[in-house]
């Protein structure tokens, strides 16, 4: 049963040092505000899981929250590299970062396996790629045809965090537009937090919308603008200019740290 909480309470109750946490969002509905609250609460030694770690993961890594990253593409979409991620991997700043690297197809199958309560997912993947030797993938044989396939262990995060457009007062969540792996990460995780743009009395049916029922979610927090500078379809657009600016803000350790102090650490949480 979902409890309606403040963002501060939600993170405090659900996330603990050392947890495996997936803040998902495939280019849409990225839970930036929840990531910022994790930074403000000073959580440490997290294993962060995400298909496309972008700015908020760069911030979590640069602020020393992460021990390990499980991912498939870590960049600033349409702009370039993530400089805090690079600094952590290349120079161990502010702390060394262990990588478990997959392909997108492998990550997607691993989440779907987690949601399905299966120990692993299967795909025709990682063929002719050096990634296979660097990650947690095994070759298996199809018991029916003998075809060789790839098995990827299921993702079962301790905490799954996503952002959505709206919820009702019971905590049923509705989201639409690009739905990414939002449903899979909630269902695959032991605990889940959903931040939403608004809480309404009744969720009106919406074409193409996905509903995640309240009894699969632990906590819902109302955080208007909680995906910015990412976007919430129907509420606000992606702040493309900020993604371009991040390139400069994140290049230098001191500029990054000063920006984080001013815009995240000293921000009053919702």
């Amino acid at each position, binding site marked *: 049963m979902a409890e309606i909480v403040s963002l501060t309470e939600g993170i405090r109750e659900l996330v603990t040092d050392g947890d495996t946490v997936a803040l998902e969002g495939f280019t849409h509905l990225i839970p930036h505000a929840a990531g910022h609250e994790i930074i403000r609460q000073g959580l440490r030694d997290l294993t962060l899981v995400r298909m496309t770690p972008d700015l908020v993961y760069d911030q979590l890594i640069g602020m020393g929250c992460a021990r390990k990253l499980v991912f498939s593409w870590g960049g600033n979409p349409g702009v370039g590299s993530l400089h805090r991620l690079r600094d952590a991997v290349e120079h161990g700043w502010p702390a060394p970062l262990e990588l478990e690297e997959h392909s997108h197809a492998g990550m997607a199958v691993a989440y779907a396996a987690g949601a399905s309560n299966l120990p692993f997912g299967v795909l025709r993947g990682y063929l002719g790629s*050096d990634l296979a030797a660097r990650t947690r993938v095994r070759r298996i044989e199809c018991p029916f045809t003998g075809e060789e396939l790839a098995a990827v262990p299921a993702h079962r995060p301790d905490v799954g965090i996503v952002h959505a457009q709206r919820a009702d007062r019971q905590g049923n969540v509705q989201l639409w537009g*690009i739905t990414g792996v939002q449903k899979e990460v909630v269902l695959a995780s032991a605990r889940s937090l959903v931040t939403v743009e608004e809480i309404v009395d009744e969720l009106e049916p919406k074409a193409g919308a996905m509903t995640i029922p309240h009894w699969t979610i632990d906590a819902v927090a109302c955080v208007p603008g909680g995906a910015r500078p990412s976007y919430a379809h129907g509420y606000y657009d992606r702040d493309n200019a900020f993604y371009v600016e991040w390139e400069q803000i994140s290049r230098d350790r001191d500029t990054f740290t000063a920006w984080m102090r001013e815009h995240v650490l000293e921000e009053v949480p919702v």
Partner: protein
Amino acid sequence: MTYTADEMMAVEAARRLTSDTVCFVGIGLPSLAANLARRTHAPGCTLIYESGTIGAKPQQLPLSIGDGELAETADAVVSVPEMFAYWLQGGRIGVGFLGAAQIDRHGNLNSTVIGDYATPKVRLPGGGGAPEIATSVREVFVMLRHSPRAFVEQLDFRTSSGERVRFVVTDLGILEPRDGELTLTRVHPGSTVDDVRAATGWELKVADDVEETAAPTDAELAALRALKTKGRE
């Protein structure tokens, strides 16, 4: 009309797409090329972005593969697990565009690291969809600027297989596989075979019948320039 090297690359890639093509598009030059094809000779070309949008018809070029306009204009929006399982692995996609930091003579690509994997000189964003795109679509088109640092004898890391690479367009010319090895088949106007050799880090095979690429037409350039990237103006 004068034009840039990037414009030449986008125009030449676009010319390879038809109204029957179903293509998997990445951001940057591939997105430019596919949208140009849709605006010119291939209005029926189906653009699929890995964020889950099938048949996207953006008016402006998106900055990311998940921009809202892609979902608003798409024929269908599907989840990411469905995109990779049913549509890509299911064998429904004809052409996949890939870029990379390095390519070898067999079309294998590196978008993972420069240097050693465990202690890299440069940690790149990573493969994303590339490993399975490279082995699931029927034809891979590579778009990559020519330099000895990019066209290398030995990849630092093999992110994706080159077995389905059919066409490599660079800022200098076009390479296609002949007898299992990428071979120079065309040079762009203003470039010579020697220029391409000098920008390639292996001993480049050159076709006997190397032709010159047709320069972008005024109509192609006008359509291309009408597709301006949001947020970068």
